[in-house]
C-alpha cells in the first residue's frame, strides 16, 4: 500500500512539474500568422514545381499564383500587426500555477478517495493459486486425471476421483458426464444414480429435470434405496408444487433413521423447505436501536413474536403467518408454544391436504413432532 502511495505521489508530482515547468519557460514574441505565411509560401512553391514539370500551363500557373499571392500578402500584414500581449501575464501565471499545484491534486486525490480502493492489492490468479496450497494440488490433480482419462476413458477409478471435484468446483456438466462414465463402466448402483442425478440437478441450476428425476427414481427403486435420491425426489415434488408427496418421501426417512444418522439435518432442512415458511419480516432498525444490547434485542423480537401470536389468535391470519409463528417460537427455544402454534394452524387449515402437509413437514423439520418429539 505504501508503494501505491509513493507511485501516486510521483505521478501527481510529475504532472504538477510538467505544468510549472512549461509556465517557467521563456516565450519569445512568436507571431502566429507566420505559420499562415509558411503554408502559402509552400503553395507557391508547389505551383512552381507543377509548372516546371509541365503539369499545368503558364496561364493556369499565373492565375493560381496571383490568388495565393493575395492570401500571402494578407497573412504577412496580419503577421506584422499581431503582437503578444504581456498585460496581466504575471497574474495569469499565478492562477495557472495555483490551478496546477492545488487544483489538479485536489481533483485527482478527491476523486480517487471517492472511487478508489487503495487498500486492495492486485489479485492475479497465478499468485492466488500459489498462496492457497491445496488449490494448485487440486488443479494439478484435475489436470493429471484428465490427461489420464483422455488416454484411457474406461478408467472408472479416475472418473470416481474427479467427479466430486468437478461438482465442488462448479463444473456440474462435467461432473454429470463423469458419473455417466462411471455407470457405463462399472454398472449402476443406487448411490451412483443418485450422484449422477445430483450433478444433473446442479447443471440445471437447481432444477430437477426429467433426466435427473429418472436417475433419482432409479436410485430409490431398489432393495437398498439411496437416501440422497429420496431427498431429491422430495425436492422434485416440491418444485411440482406438491408438498404432500414431498412429505411422503421424507417422513419415512426420518422415522427409520438411526439417531446419529449423518443425513438427519439435511432431511430436516428439506422438510422446513417443504413447509415453505415465509421469512420473519425484519423490523426496521432505528438509530437508537443500535445502542441496544443483544438481550434487549432478543426481548424486542420476543415482543414482536408475541404480538404476532396475539393477532393470529384474535383474528385468524393466513397459513404462512401461522407457520412463521411456529418457526419463530421454535427458534426462540419455546417448544411448547411452537407446538401450540402448529395445532392452532391444524385447527384452522387441517382440512386442506396441501396445507396439512406443510404443517406436518414443519413439525417434523423442527423436530417437534414425530420421531424424538
Amino acid at each position, binding site marked *: 500500500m505504501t508503494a501505491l502511495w509513493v507511485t501516486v505521489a510521483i505521478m501527481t508530482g510529475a504532472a504538477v512539474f510538467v505544468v510549472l515547468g512549461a509556465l517557467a519557460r521563456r*516565450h519569445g514574441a512568436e507571431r502566429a500568422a507566420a505559420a499562415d505565411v509558411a503554408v502559402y509560401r509552400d503553395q507557391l512553391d508547389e505551383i512552381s514545381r507543377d509548372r516546371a514539370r509541365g*503539369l499545368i500551363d503558364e496561364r493556369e500557373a499565373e492565375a493560381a499564383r496571383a490568388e495565393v*499571392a493575395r492570401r500571402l500578402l494578407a497573412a504577412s500584414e496580419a503577421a506584422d500587426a499581431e503582437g503578444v500581449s504581456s498585460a496581466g501575464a504575471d497574474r495569469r501565471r499565478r492562477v495557472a500555477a495555483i490551478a496546477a499545484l492545488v487544483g489538479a491534486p485536489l481533483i485527482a486525490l478527491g476523486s480517487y478517495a471517492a472511487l478508489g480502493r487503495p487498500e486492495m492489492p492486485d489479485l492475479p490468479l497465478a499468485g492466488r493459486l500459489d498462496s492457497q496450497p491445496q488449490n494448485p494440488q487440486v488443479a494439478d490433480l484435475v489436470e493429471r486425471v484428465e490427461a489420464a482419462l483422455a488416454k484411457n476413458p474406461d478408467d472408472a477409478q479416475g472418473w470416481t476421483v474427479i467427479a466430486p471435484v468437478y461438482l465442488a468446483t462448479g463444473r456440474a*456438466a462435467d461432473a454429470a458426464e463423469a458419473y455417466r462414465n462411471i455407470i457405463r463402466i462399472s454398472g449402476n448402483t443406487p448411490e451412483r444414480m443418485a450422484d449422477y442425478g445430483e450433478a444433473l440437478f446442479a447443471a440445471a441450476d437447481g432444477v430437477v429435470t426429467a433426466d435427473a428425476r429418472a436417475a433419482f427414481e432409479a436410485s430409490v427403486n431398489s432393495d437398498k434405496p439411496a437416501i440422497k435420491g429420496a431427498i431429491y425426489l422430495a425436492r422434485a415434488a416440491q418444485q411440482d408444487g406438491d408438498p404432500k408427496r414431498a412429505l411422503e418421501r421424507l417422513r419415512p426417512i426420518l422415522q427409520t433413521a438411526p439417531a446419529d444418522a449423518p443425513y438427519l439435518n439435511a432431511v430436516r432442512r428439506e422438510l422446513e423447505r417443504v413447509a415453505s415458511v415465509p421469512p420473519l419480516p425484519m423490523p426496521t432498525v432505528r438509530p437508537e436501536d443500535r445502542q441496544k444490547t443483544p438481550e434487549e434485542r432478543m426481548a424486542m423480537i420476543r415482543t414482536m413474536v408475541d404480538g404476532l401470536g396475539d393477532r393470529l389468535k384474535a383474528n385468524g391470519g393466513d397459513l404462512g403467518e401461522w407457520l412463521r409463528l411456529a418457526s419463530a417460537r421454535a427458534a426462540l427455544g419455546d417448544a411448547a408454544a411452537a407446538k401450540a402454534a402448529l395445532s392452532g394452524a391444524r385447527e384452522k387449515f387441517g382440512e386442506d391436504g396441501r396445507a396439512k402437509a406443510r404443517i406436518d413437514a414443519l413439525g417434523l423439520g423442527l423436530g417437534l413432532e414425530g420421531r424424538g418429539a
Partner: protein
Amino acid sequence: MIAETGHYALVLALALAILQSVLPMWGARARDAALMGLASPLAVSQFVLVAIAFAALTHAYVTSDFSLLNVIENSHSAKPLIYKISGVWGNHEGSLLLWVLILVLFGALVAVFGRNLPDRLKADVLSVQAMISTAFLAFVLITSNPFARVSPAPLEGQDLNPLLQDPGLAIHPPLLYLGYVGFSMAFSFAVAALIEGKVDAAWARWVRPWTLMAWCFLTLGIAMGSYWAYYELGWGGFWFWDPVENASLMPWLSGTALLHSAVVMEKREALKVWTILLALLTFALSLLGTFLVRSGVLTSVHAFAVDPARGVAILIILTLFVGGSLALYAIRAPALKQGGLFAPVSREGALVLNNIFLTAACAAVFIGTLYPLALEAATGEKISVGPPFFNMTFGPIMLPVMLVMPFAPLLAWKRGDALRAAQGMITALGVAIVATALVAGFVRGGPTLAPVGVGLALFTIVGAFAEIQGRLKLFGIPLGDSLRRARGLPTSAWGGALAHAGMGVTLLGVIGATAWASETVTAIRPGETMKIAGYELAFRDLEKRDGPNYRSTVAMIDVRKDGESVTTVEPARRLYLARKMDLSESSIATFGLSQLYASMAEERTDGATGFRVTYKPLVVLIWLGAIVMALGGGLSLADRRLRVGAPRKASVRAAPPQLQPAE
C-alpha cells in the same frame, strides 16, 4: 497495486484534462504565450496517464485478476492470451477506455507534430480536444469504471461473449475508434476556427491530414467489421444495414464529403462555412454512433452494454457538444468571409456535386437508422427499416457519385472543360462497354442489370486513372518521358486515383457477390455429397475437437472440382463452456476472388447434419476495395505537401528562380 495505479492515473488524467480545457483557451483569448504553451505538455501528459491506465487494465486481464469486476464479467482464466488482451476492449467499460485513449493520443499527436500550427489555433484546438476528453473521462469514471473492485474476488470469470472471441475483434474496434475519434480532430479544429473567427485556406491544409488519417482508419474499420460479421455471424452476408453498421457508415460518408470540401477550401478558399459545418457534423455522427452502440438503445450483437443510465449520460455529452458547437456555428458562421467564385463545370463544381450526393446518402442512412427509433420512442410502435429501404434510397444516390467521380480530377480548377474531360474518359468508357457486353453475353444467371453494374464498376476503376494517364501521356510520348513524369507526380495524385479506384473495386465485389451468388441448404449424412456452383462437397465425417474454453464438433468436407479434390472446408459448432453458448463457426475456402462459405446447423437426431453453403463470386473484392481506398488515403497522407514546415530533403529540386513570384 498496478490496478490501483491505473485507476489513479485515470483520475489524474481527468484533472489534467480540466486544466487543459481552461488554461490554453484563456491564454489564447488573452494572447498569453505562457498559458498557450501549456497545451502541448498537458496533452502529452494526459496521453501518458491514460496509457498507464490502459496498460494497468490490460495487465489485470492478462493475469486474470478477478478482483476487478470488469475482468470477472469479461474474462476467464482458460481463455487464450490474445482474447484476454482483446477482451480489454470487448466490453463497455474497456472499449470506452480505448475510446478515451485514442482521443488523447490524437491530442498528443497534435501537440508533438503540430509545431507548424499557429500558437493560438493550437491552444484552442487542444483545449477543445481536452473538453471532449474531460467529458468522456468523467463518463468513464462515474458510470463505467473499469477499475471497480470486488472483494472477495471469485476464482473464475464469466468469460467473454464467444461471438467476440475472434481475431477480428482484436483489430476491428481499435481501427473503428481511430476513425471515429480521429474526426474529433476535425471537430476541434472547426470549433477553434469558429472561436478565432478566422477560417482560411491554411486552416483547411492543417485539418486535412487529420481528417484523412481518420478516414483511412474508419474505412479499414468498417471493412474489418463487415468481414468479421461475414464469417463470424454465420449468415454469409457482408452488410446488413444493421443500425450499428449504419452508425459507422454515416461518419464515413460525411467524412468523405469533408475530405473533398476541404480540398476546395484549401485551393480556392471557397465552401468555408460548409466545410466547417461538415467537420462539426462528422464528429457529431461519430458521437451518435458511440451513443447508439454504447447506450443499448439498439438490440443487436453490439449492444453488449445495456444500461439506460449510461445512455442518458452519453446523450447529455452528445447534446452538449453537438448543440454547443452548432450554436457557436450559428453565431460565428455568418461573419466568415466567403471565398472565390467558380463555374459549375469545374473541379470545385464536381466536388460540390460529390458533397451534395454524399450528404444526401448520409441523410438517407440517418433517416433509415433513426426513424424506427424515434417512432418507437414516440408511439411505442416497432417497425424495422430493412435493406429494401436502403437499396431504394442509398443505391440511387450513390450511383451518380460513382458516375461523376472519375470526371472530377480531369476538370481544372475555376473553369473546367467538359469536352476535354470527356475525351479523357474514352478508354474507361470503352472498357466499360466491352465488359458489359462480355458479361451479358457469356455469364448466365443474375439480374438483367448486373452486367451494366459490372460496366459501371470497371468504368470507375479505369476512369480513376484517367487523370494520371492524361499527365503521363503513356504511349503518347516516349516511355522514358512518361516514367519521368510518373516520378514527378505528387504521391497525393496516386493516392486520389487509388482511393477512387478502390470504390470501383468494392462496387464490383458487391455486384458479383449479390448478383451471381448461389446457396444450398441441405442435411446430409457422412459419405453423402452436395453440389454448388460447379463444386462438389463431400461430407467425410464429424469430429470432436476441444479448444481451451470450448468444445466443438467439426464437419470435415472435401471440396472437389471436376472430380479432383481442391481443398477442404471444416465448418463447426462450438459450445463455449463458461457461458454455455452454442456458436456456429463457419469455414471459408477462397478461390481467387470468390469464396465458398460453409456453415453448419445443429446435428439432427436422424444422423444427418444440416449445412448451409454459399458461393459468392468476387466477394473478396468488397474488402480488397476498402483496403485499396485506405491505401490511397495513406499515399495522400504521405505526400510531403501536407507537412508544411517540416524540414525538406535536399534531393527535392528547387524551383527555377524565374518562376518565383514577386512578393
